[in-house]
Every structure is written in structure tokens, then in C-alpha cells.
């Protein structure tokens, strides 16, 4: 039986359209403004499509040496950090998924406790400082290297792998380390992609660690540059200014362009993220 399309359905679709539009429209607007000419932006005429299309703002953003350096920094932090986080979490999760490991339950309790209790901002800061990590690349990748949620999600995934994998490895004379790298990891590409993307996005977006652990402007990631440009300049002069080249650029359009440039990598990997993460996010929630 098939109920017909009634008032309820019309309302339903209206609300859902509203939700989708509110998630998407801010980005459309920012892209449109950042690609528009000075006059339409100052007059407030840009809503959906760029008017007097030009790339001046983007040229200005890419000509800014600060942004270029921050971009490189962010890419380094993200690649290095994701690699470290993924390897440490996957190896840890795999060993915790094996029942016969010595101290397994003790380690599991130790890991789970951190979900509910932590040393807090200042002790963590002092500890990171005592390891001499302040103002190094490592401050951006090590203090948050393992996310306990991600670790538990991976553990649940590994627990579900067929026992035969391990047995066939044992017959071939592999140690657990060999089984993990040569057999288990190749079977776990989907979960590695999902968790890797989670870690990557978190590091790309990380502002907290930079705020706490970095003083040296040469090491700043993009998020700090955006904060300094948009937020610390907030409430200040708004209007057209001469930045770098000879073209007039609206301050606001430049800020939007910076935001877009910062966010584009995430928008680009988003479709891939899409494919995996819903599955990945669910694996952890399937409880026995």
C-alpha cells in the first residue's frame, strides 16, 4: 500500500529543504562574495552568483607569504600526524582485540578511564613543556595522537575479523607483528581510510594545540592565521583596502577567500569521507 502525498509530506520536505539549505548556503555565499568585484560586494548585491567575476582576492591570498607558509605547515602536520595516529591506534587496537594478551583487561580499563577523566589543560601543558615539545612540529602531532574513541572503534572492527586470518598467519610462521602488518592491515582498508580521515580532519582543524604549544609564528598552522586575520581584525575597519597588488579588494571578500582556501581541502575530500564515515562511525556503536 502506498499512502498519498499529503500536507504532512509537504511540510516534511519543506523542513528538510530548510536544513539542507542552511548547511549549504553559507558556503555558496562566501564563494560568491570572494569571486565578485568590489562594487557589488560593497553595495551588498551578491547573494548566489558572483557579480563582476574575478580572482583578485585569491591572487592576494596566495601572494601572502604568511598564508603560504601556514599552508605548508598545516599539510606537514596533517600528513605526519595522521600517519603517527593511525599506526599507533591501529596497532594498539589490534592488540587489545586479542583475548589472550597479557594484561589486556588492565590496559583496556586504563584506556577507557581517559574518556571520563583527564589531567586537564594546565597539567597537560606543563607536561608537554617538560618534554621540550613547545615550539616544535611534535607539539602539533603528539599530545593528541590517539583518540580513545577511534581506538575503541578500531578495536571493535578487529574483533569482528575472522579467526582464520590469524591462524593462517601462524601456520605460515608469522609473529603477531607480521600478521598485523601483512594480513590484518590489508584487510582493513575501509576502517583505516575512515579513521585516517577523522584524524586528518581533526589535525587540519586543530587550533587548540597551536594556541597552547606554539609561540613561533613560523610554525603557525592555517587556523591561527585565519583567527588572526578574521577574528582579531573583527570590529575594526571594514571597507576596501589596497593589499599587495594594484587592485582594490574588499576586506570582507579577502576574508571569505581566506576561509574558502582554508576549507577547500575538506570540501574536496568530503565526497570520499562521505562514502566511508557513516559506516565507520557505526562500527563502534555496534555493541554485543
Amino acid at each position, binding site marked *: 500500500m502506498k499512502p498519498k502525498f499529503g500536507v*504532512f509530506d509537504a511540510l*516534511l520536505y519543506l*523542513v*528538510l529543504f530548510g*536544513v*539542507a539549505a542552511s*548547511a549549504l548556503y553559507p558556503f555558496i555565499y562566501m564563494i560568491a562574495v570572494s569571486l565578485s568585484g568590489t562594487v557589488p560586494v560593497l553595495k*551588498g548585491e551578491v547573494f548566489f552568483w558572483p557579480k563582476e567575476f574575478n580572482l583578485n582576492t585569491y591572487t592576494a591570498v596566495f601572494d601572502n607569504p604568511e598564508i603560504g607558509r601556514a599552508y605548508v605547515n598545516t599539510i606537514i602536520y596533517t600528513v605526519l600526524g595522521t600517519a603517527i595516529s593511525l599506526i*599507533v591506534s591501529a*596497532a*594498539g587496537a*589490534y*592488540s*587489545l582485540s*586479542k583475548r589472550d*594478551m*597479557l*594484561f589486556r583487561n588492565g*590496559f583496556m580499563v*586504563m*584506556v577507557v578511564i*581517559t574518556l571520563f577523566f*583527564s*589531567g*586537564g*589543560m*594546565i*597539567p*597537560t*601543558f*606543563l*607536561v608537554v613543556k617538560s618534554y621540550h615539545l613547545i615550539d616544535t612540529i611534535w607539539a602539533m602531532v*603528539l*599530545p593528541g595522537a590517539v583518540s580513545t574513541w577511534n*581506538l575503541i572503534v578500531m578495536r571493535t572492527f578487529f574483533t569482528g575479523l575472522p579467526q582464520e586470518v590469524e591462524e593462517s598467519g601462524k601456520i605460515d610462521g608469522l*609473529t*603477531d607483528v607480521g600478521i598485523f602488518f601483512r594480513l590484518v592491515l590489508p584487510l582493513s582498508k575501509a576502517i583505516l581510510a575512515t579513521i585516517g580521515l577523522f584524524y586528518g*580532519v581533526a589535525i587540519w*582543524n586543530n*587550533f*587548540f594545540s597551536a594556541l597552547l604549544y606554539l609561540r613561533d609564528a613560523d610554525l603557525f598552522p592555517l*587556523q591561527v592565521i*585565519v*583567527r588572526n586575520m*578574521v*577574528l582579531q581584525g*573583527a*570590529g575594526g575597519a*571594514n571597507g576596501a583596502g589596497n593589499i599587495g597588488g594594484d587592485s582594490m579588494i574588499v576586506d*570582507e571578500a579577502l576574508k*571569505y577567500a581566506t*576561509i574558502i582556501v*582554508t*576549507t577547500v581541502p*575538506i570540501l574536496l575530500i*568530503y565526497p570520499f*569521507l*562521505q562514502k566511508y564515515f557513516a559506516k565507520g*562511525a557505526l562500527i563502534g*556503536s555496534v555493541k554485543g
Partner: protein
Amino acid sequence: MALLRLRWNRSKYLLLLFLPALVYYVMFKYVPMFGILISFKDYNPFKGIWQSEWVGLKYYEMFFHSPDFPKLLKNTILLGVYKVVFGFPAPIILALLLNEVRKGVVKRLVQSISYLPHFISNVVVVSMMFLFLSPTSGLVNHVVEWMGYSSINFMQNENYFRTLYILSEIWQHIGWETIIYLAALSAIDPQLYEAATVDGASRWHQLRHVTLPGIMPAIVILFILNIGHVLDIGFEKVLLMLNPSIYSTADVLSTYVFRTGIQAMNYSYGTAIDLFTSVVNLLFILTANWISRRTSETSLW
């Protein structure tokens, strides 16, 4: 002894795989927990954690008697409570709405789009708020002026802070948080709906008697987890939104810890406030779990 040796031999390579994670947890999670000791000491950077002098509860008393204490506690709790009251039901409602959609394409499209803001950084989200809400050039104030009102300086007005914080939280996370509810919804036995339809149950009745009971365990679990973070207000976002003109509503425990603890280097004092926050959070989650175990079948442990 022999048994232990056997188990050791069985698991030495597994332990080797666990070693990096163990080192991480000890170095970055457990050593800081011992660092909490400095909240009972007069921390002196030159003497270090162990050599600094004990002062007992001095910093706790200082905090509880500080004129900022009632304001900070009120701001933090209000923000946390509003977040639960408005932010917690939002994804449930969206999931229930999505569940009513019969066209798979529409459902998937809305879902995919609504996840997007979850992956945008707090810096960008707050930047967008400042730009969109700017009194001179912001899109929102263009609309406000177009409707005949004078423009409002949203981000500098303490009366708007809580609303803006909660609304932007919902905007960021509503789509993402539906995932778990949608999974719970898809696990409901379709036969229950068929039986309900045969019995003449309307859409509303089905929602009330089949759908909601079906996802109740998921709701309870997530509610307990949410309660455990009532005082755990997202530090990054509040700090980014914060400016002195809105301290009266926006200054929360964690931003105060950052200002007095890290920036002004009152390490012991800041740590005392941090520990107070952690302990209250822990009490909240233990209580919520206990109540839930008593009243329903569902609990975290």
C-alpha cells in the same frame, strides 16, 4: 610461574604492538593526571612539580571565595544545560523526520549535506559568525535593516551570546549526530510497522508506539554521555567567540582557566579549577548512569 611464562610467550608480540599506545597513554594522559598534584602545591617552575611546597586547599578556597566563581559557574552550567535542552533533541527530531521520507534519494541527499558543517573547524565557524553577523557588512544585518530595524552588533552583545553559541552548535552537529539514531531506526523490525498498520495505527501512533520505543536505548545512552559533559563546554569555540564586552555571559570555567592559568601563569590556581570541573563532570555522569540503571534497562556499565 610456568603458566605466566607461557602467556608471556603467547603475547609478547601483541604487547610489542601495544607498546606505542601504552607509551602515549602514560606520557600524555597519566603523567598529566599526577600533575594535578600542583593544585595542592605552590607550583614553582624552577622547583618543578615534586619539589614545590604543599599548600593544601589554598587554591580551592581562593577559587570558591573569588568574586568570579558564581558568575563562571552560572555561565558554564547555563550553557551546558541549554546545550542539552536544545541541542540534544535536535538530531533526534531530524532523524525522525528523515525516517518519514519515502524517497531514498531525498533522504540521502539531505543527510549528506547536513553532515558537512561537522567537518568545518571552529575557527572557520566563528569567523563566519563574525562576518555574517557584522553590524556594518554582515548578511544578517542587511536582512535586519531591510525589515526596517537598525542593525544589531550581535557578537559584542552579551544577551545574544548563549543563543548564538547554541544555534551554531546545532548547525554544526545536527546532521552528524543523526547517524546513530538513523542506525537505531533502521534496526527496528519492519514487521512491527506492518502489524501496526493492520491494527489501523496512524503515522503518529506508529511514531509514538513503535519508533520511539525502538530508539529509546540509543537516546538514553547518548543522554548519559551528554550529561557527563555538561560542564565540559567546547573550549575552542567559546574562546574564539569571547571578547571583553561579553564576559558577563560568555566567560566559562575553561576560558577562565586558560586566561588565569596559562596566560597569567597561575598554574596551581588554574589546575584547581580544572580538577573541580573534572570532578563535577564525573559526578554528573555517575549519577545519570545510576539513575538510568535504576529506572530503565539501559546504562553505560
